[in-house]
Each structure stands twice: as structure tokens, then as C-alpha cells.
């Protein structure tokens, strides 16, 4: 009830303020940003009260206040707030990389690769096969020959197999889940980002040879760039991770500021040297975490999680605001079977892969539920297709974004259910986090988190 009152008051306040003001000096940007944080957090609280993940609330808040419904956050504001999304992706990627310890990778790496191989292959084949089978009803496959339909379906399927590191990380941050289901899901999601790019490169090369785009040179450049995007990201990310480790070793000051700067710097650097942002920062997080002493890496992670908290809220709210409901409504006859087939393939593939890898019964049963969400790199890949094949590519992108919107909303609910069923959901997560922080902050609780690393108090190790 309280949260509903907040939403009504805020909407009323915005209606009063918006006609009186003027653009300039970022006032409107800031106003919308603040409104989104508070409104999305309120809706997130509402969804938490009915045992749904907060992320779903953030997405729904974005959808409600976005251009599709109330239009408090209009299309221009979404564009203006785009840098927040870049920053969020960078923070998510770095945090995700920092979650991985080398020892754990050695222990769990084979299992992750086996799960990934089977689920990705099955999903790819199932989605591509379905599209070819119903190609008469698929907008971008109508009036094409079978080979062209096949390669275009493969290209769509290579994007559709993607998962969402953002949702996975946000939910793990929210629930503080650290059990085998959580760890395996995170591992599969992170490695799949690299695998998807490789798969997409192959599908794109095949598509170019069977159905050459109007501008062949454009395709060549894109493919070359894709290869560089992957390997360049690993090299540049490792270098950046090394720099962060050096900073943590010798400086260790102003971690809050440093965390934001690293994310901003990483995102900007990736853009300049044309490497994949997510993969680069993921590598940087992994390298810095594994080169640093555990308590130093932990202090940086805390600082980063704290600085990321409001950014995450806005990131998911913006994702919700960007959803185009009309597209989903138009495409639903195709969308529903497509989503169901992907789900079926995910369930079967993960189950088989987990059995092959000798995973625990919980992992066999529940990991697939954490792989439903989609986002991140896929949007970029869909855009490459749209640029390469302007006519059909636009339809591919539209169908993909509609699929993504549904999976993005349903996925967190399923993942939370999986964590709950496997007994990894930590209901006291926030209290524990606060205990750690109050322990770090001393009795008065007045020491800012930025100075945590400067404290000589040993930090508690990350729960396994």
C-alpha cells in the first residue's frame, strides 16, 4: 500500500513539475533518472512482496512509465539515459568476471563446457528447425528459397541461443545465492557469451556465402571485426585487469570512485579499440580478482556493487521502457511457440549436458531455469544482421527483440524459482551484507565504504 502511495505521489509530482521547467544543464535528465530509481525501486518492492524478483518489478516499472503506456519517460529520455545502460553493462561484466576464481574454474570448467555444448547445440537446432518448418509464417523467411531460409534461420538461432549475464548477475547480487546451481548457471551464462559470438560468426559467414548482402564489403568488415572483438577483448581486458590489480596492490584508495571510473574507462576503451565490452570487462574482472589478494578483491567488489545498485535499477527500468508492446502483440502467434521450443530445448539440453558432466541432481533439474533470460550481446548481434540485410534483417531484429522482451521478463522469475527450489535462496542476504559492512565500518558506522580498503581490518572471505 505504501509503495502504491509513493507511485501515485510521484506521478502527481511529475505532472506538476514537468510543465513548469526548462531543458538545459541536465535538469530533466536528472529528474527522470531520479524518478526512475525511486519508481522502479517501489515497483521492485511490490514484486518482492509477492515473491517475484525485483528485476521484474524494475522492468515492469519501465514498461509502465515508458512510451508504451504512461510516457512519463519518453523516447528522448531513454536515448539521453543510454550512457547509464553502458555503465551498467560494464559494471555487471566486471562484477561477473570478479565472481570467478581460477580454482573454481578448474574444478567446474569441464561441467560448464559440457552443459553449454549440449544446451546450445540443441537450442540452436531446435530454433532454426522450427523457423524453417514454419517459414511461410515468418516475416523474414517468406518468399525465399530453402537454402536462404535455412541460413537466415541459422543466423536467427545463433542470436537466440544467447543468455543474459545482466539478469543472472543482478539476481545473484540481489539474493546472494552462492550454491552449485547459482555457480553453474553463472559459469554457463558467462562462457556462452563467447560461444555465441563464435557461433554467430560462423552463421554469418555461411549466410554471406549463400545469400550475399547488397554490400559484400560490409559483411567482410563485420566478420573481421567480430574475430577481433573476441580476441582483442581478451587481451585488452587482461591488461586492464592487471592495472586494476596493481592499483589494489599499491594504492587501495577511493575504491568507490575507482570502481565507477574503471567501468566508465573500460566501456569507453572497448568502444575505442572496437572490442566486445562485456567480454573485455569480464576478463578484466577475472584477471584483477585472481591476481589480487582475496580481501582486496572483495573490497573492490563491495564498492562496485554499491556504486552499481542505483545504476542496475535504472538499467532494467530502461530495458522495460524500451520494450515495444505493439510488436509483441502483433507477433504473438509466432512468438509463443518459438519461446516454448527454446524453453524445451534449454531444459533437455541442460539436463543431458549436466548428466554428461556428472552434475548434482539439483543442477540437472534447475540450471536450465537460469538460462531463460536474454539480453546483452544479442542486441548488438541482431543489429549487425539488420545492418547487413536491411530488409529481412529488420524483421529478424523485430522478432528477436519481441522474444527478448518476453524472456527478459519471465527469465528472472524462473531463475528465482530455481534458486528457491534448490535451497540456495538466501532470504537474509541483505542483513548479512549489512553485517559485513557494519563490521567493516566499525562501531559508529560512519566510515564510508570508499575507505574500506584503507582499513586494516581483515575482510571476511567470500562465501564459497
Amino acid at each position, binding site marked *: 500500500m505504501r509503495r502504491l502511495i509513493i507511485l501515485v505521489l510521484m506521478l502527481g509530482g511529475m505532472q506538476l513539475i514537468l510543465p513548469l521547467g526548462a531543458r538545459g*544543464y541536465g535538469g530533466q535528465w536528472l529528474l527522470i533518472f531520479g524518478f526512475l530509481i*525511486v519508481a522502479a525501486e*517501489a515497483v521492485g518492492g511490490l514484486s518482492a512482496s509477492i515473491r517475484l524478483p525485483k528485476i521484474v518489478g524494475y522492468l515492469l516499472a519501465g514498461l509502465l512509465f515508458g512510451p508504451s503506456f504512461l510516457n512519463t519517460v519518453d523516447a528522448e529520455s531513454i536515448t539521453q539515459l543510454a550512457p547509464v545502460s553502458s555503465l551498467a553493462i560494464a559494471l555487471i561484466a566486471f562484477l561477473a568476471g570478479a565472481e570467478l576464481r581460477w580454482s573454481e574454474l578448474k574444478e567446474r570448467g569441464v561441467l560448464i563446457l559440457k552443459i553449454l555444448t549440449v544446451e546450445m547445440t540443441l537450442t540452436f537446432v531446435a530454433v532454426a528447425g522450427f523457423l524453417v518448418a514454419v517459414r511461410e509464417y515468418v516475416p523474414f523467411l517468406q518468399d525465399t528459397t530453402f537454402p536462404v531460409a535455412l541460413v537466415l534461420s541459422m543466423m536467427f538461432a545463433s542470436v537466440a541461443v544467447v543468455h543474459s549475464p545482466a539478469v543472472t548477475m543482478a539476481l545473484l547480487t540481489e539474493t546472494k545465492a552462492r550454491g552449485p546451481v547459482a555457480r553453474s548457471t553463472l559459469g554457463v551464462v558467462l562462457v556462452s557469451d563467447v560461444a555465441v559470438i563464435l557461433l554467430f560468426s560462423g552463421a554469418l559467414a555461411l549466410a554471406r556465402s549463400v545469400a550475399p548482402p547488397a554490400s559484400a564489403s560490409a559483411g567482410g568488415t563485420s566478420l573481421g571485426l567480430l574475430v577481433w572483438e573476441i580476441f582483442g577483448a581478451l587481451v585488452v581486458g587482461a591488461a586492464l585487469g592487471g592495472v586494476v590489480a596493481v592499483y589494489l596492490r599499491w594504492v587501495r584508495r577511493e575504491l568507490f570512485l575507482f570502481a565507477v571510473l574503471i567501468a566508465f*574507462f573500460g566501456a*569507453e576503451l572497448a568502444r575505442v579499440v572496437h572490442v566486445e565490452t562485456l567480454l573485455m570487462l569480464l576478463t578484466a574482472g577475472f584477471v584483477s580478482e585472481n591476481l589480487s589478494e582475496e580481501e582486496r578483491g572483495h573490497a573492490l567488489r563491495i564498492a562496485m556493487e554499491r556504486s552499481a545498485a*542505483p545504476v542496475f535499477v535504472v538499467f532494467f527500468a530502461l530495458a522495460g521502457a524500451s520494450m515495444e508492446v505493439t510488436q509483441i502483440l502483433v507477433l504473438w502467434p509466432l512468438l509463443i511457440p518459438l519461446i516454448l521450443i527454446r524453453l524445451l530445448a534449454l531444459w533437455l539440453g541442460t539436463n543431458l549436458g549436466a548428466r554428461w558432466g556428472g552434475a548434482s541432481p539439483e543442477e540437472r533439474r534447475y540450471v536450465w531455469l537460469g538460462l531463460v533470460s536474454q539480453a546483452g550481446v544479442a542486441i548488438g548481434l541482431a543489429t549487425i544482421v539488420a545492418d547487413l540485410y536491411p530488409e529481412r534483417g529488420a524483421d529478424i531484429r523485430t522478432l528477436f527483440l519481441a522474444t527478448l522482451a518476453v524472456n527478459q521478463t519471465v527469465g528472472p522469475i524462473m531463475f528465482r524459482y530455481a534458486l528457491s527450489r534448490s535451497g540456495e535462496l538466501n532470504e537474509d542476504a541483505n542483513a548479512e551484507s549489512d553485517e559485513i559492512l557494519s563490521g567493516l565500518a566499525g562501531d559508529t*558506522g*560512519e566510515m564510508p565504504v570508499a575507505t574500506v580498503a584503507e582499513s586494516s581490518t581483515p575482510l571476511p572471505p567470500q562465501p564459497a
Partner: protein
Amino acid sequence: MTQGLILVLIVVGAYLAAHGVFDWLARKLVIVSGAEYLILGVLLGPSATGLIDATFLQDIAPASALALGWMGAINGSRLVLLRLVRIPALVYRVAFAESLITLFIVGGLQYFLLSWLFGLSPDRAFAPAVALGAFATLSGHAGIELAARRSRGQGLLVTTLRATTGANAAVAICTFGILLAFGHPPSTALSRPITPTEWTVITIVIGVAGGALYHLFLGEENSVDRMFISLGGVLILVSGAATYLRLSPVMAGMFFGMTLINTSRKRNEITAALSRVERPLYFVLLIFAGASWRLSAQSVWLLPVLLFVVARAVGKFGGARLAARLNDVLPTLGPDWGVALLGQGGLIIALSVNYLYQDTLALPNLVFTTAIISVLLTDLLSGRFAASVIPPATTTMTHPMPHRAL
């Protein structure tokens, strides 16, 4: 390389170098850190190297607007009524008398000088004169705290100095906020124009409503994460609303901080959450301010700047002495206690950036230049100024509290 990338590299490098050097200086020589970032901003900006251009400044304007609101909130959060009522009334009389004397001396002199020098009409000269008067009132507390820590002083002098810096900030913020309400361009959205009084009330309401919204939003929540998100979210909203309405985010932020700190049971947590990003935002603001600086187009710009520095020194020194004499505490505080108030502190940068945003007010570059020069002249030595006044611990502690204070 993009501008953003260069900027991050420069800021990080310069930050580390400056921080190391100035930390050492603060420890060894009682020099307060802060002005170095302002110099860095000037060096990076269009007036020097041009590494930061006008477009980039426009891009980071929201962050600096947020910094203004945040600084206001931090100042507001110092106004805890339960602690304030324990301070003797005498201290407030001295503090507010000093503030108002300085405000009127500097504001009045600037009004006449600016009218005469630039041929401004009384209406046009009013805004820069009052703004400069408000700026002159401000005193930095960092130097006083540094000197007080070194001498472990807790007597009437230190109490009065602390109360005076608080009163200075409150007077300056409110004066400036009301000035913006008076200088507000007419709004065409309503059937009748909104009066300055109504704009002032709107500024206060934004802050108070923000504080109320925070409580409504958070309820009895104990999570530090949620507290930080709520605090950040509402403060961004408050700063954004004030900036969007062309009002003072510093004043709205101050009322937000005051409402919050006086209605919450978690004062320590709120203070910790506010302090957490104070330094990063302050650095952004300083660099933004330095980069925004342009040499005033008027060739005689040096004259008002000189007048400001001299009149402020007279106001602080003479005003403090007069205030103490009027309240019969001159023997206790000492004749030169106003010297400790000469350091300007960071709030002047926030208010001057806020003035720069108001493109309808006269002489924005001149007002801004004056503020920057005053900070550069006084901030480095503010610890020294305070140390020259605050005696060693034993002397301070033995000063008797005058009867009127009791």
C-alpha cells in the same frame, strides 16, 4: 582516443598525484586539500589546454547538478536539532551576527561598485552583488576541524567557530536560493506568473517532500543497500527537480538533508551514506568548475575581485570582532578569532556553479571568477588561519563560559 578516455586517464593520474602530495601537505603543514582539483579543471578546460570542451561540459552537467544537491544535503544533515538546541544561544547570536555583517558589507560594496563600473541598472546589479555577498559569508570548516584536531580544542572558541561556519552556510544557501527565486524567468505554463515567494516555497517543498518521500519509500527498512538506493534516488530526484525548475538544488538539498536527519532514527547510517559519495562528487564539481571557468570579458574584472577579497577579509575579521563585542565575548574568543573563518570551503564552488547555470543573471563569469580566485587564495591556508587562532588544548579548555551563555 576519445575525449572521455583522455579525461579519465588525466583525472586518475592527476588525482593520485595530487592526493598523495596534498595528503602529505595536510599532515605536515596544515594545508587543506581541495583547491588542486580546481586548478586541474582550469588546466583541462577550454581556457588552457582545451582537453575538456563545451560539449563535454554539457554532457557532465547532470553530475555536477547532482553534486550541488548532494552538497546541500550534507550541509542540511549537519543541522540536527537535538544537537543544535544544546549549543548556547549566545553562540548563535555571535554566529549569525558575523554572517549578516559580512553579507551586508560585501553585498553592499559590490552593489555600488558593479553599478558604477559596468553601468548596470539597480535591478541588474542586485543579483551579482547579493550572490557575492552570500559567497563572502561562507567559511570552510575543514581548516577549523584540522586545527581543532591538532590542538584537541573543545572550548567556547571551537564551538563558536563550528557554529559560525554552520550559520554561514545556512545564511549563504538561503540567501542564494531566494535570490534565484527572485531572478527566476517568468513561466508561461500557468495562467499567471509565479511570484518569487512561491518559487522560494517550491524550493523548500521540493526538499521537504523529498525527505518525506524517503521515509515513505523506505519505512523501517534496515538494509544499507536499499537505504543507499533510496537516498541516492530521492536526492537525484530533488536535485533534478530543482535544476529543471531553475531553482537552487543546493537549497532544496539542504532542506532535504535537514528533514531527513531530524526525522530519522538512523542518523549515523544516513550520514555515512551521504559521505560515501561526497568526495567523488566534490571532485567532479571542482573539475567541472575549473573547466567551466572563462576569463571575464570585462577588462576591469580585477577590481570587483579585489574588492571581494578585501571586503570579505574586513567583514570576517571586523564582523567577527564586532559580533563578539556586541555579545560580550570578545575577551573569551579573542580579538582575531574571525581570522579562522577566512578559508572559503567547497560550498562557494557549488553556489558559483549554480549561478553560472542561471543564464538570465548578470555577470556570470565575473561572479564565478571571483569565487574561484577567493578559493585559490584562501583554501590552501585555511588550516593555517585556524591554527593561528585556536590555542593549544590546555588554554582553550580553561576558558570560562561567560554568564550570558549559560
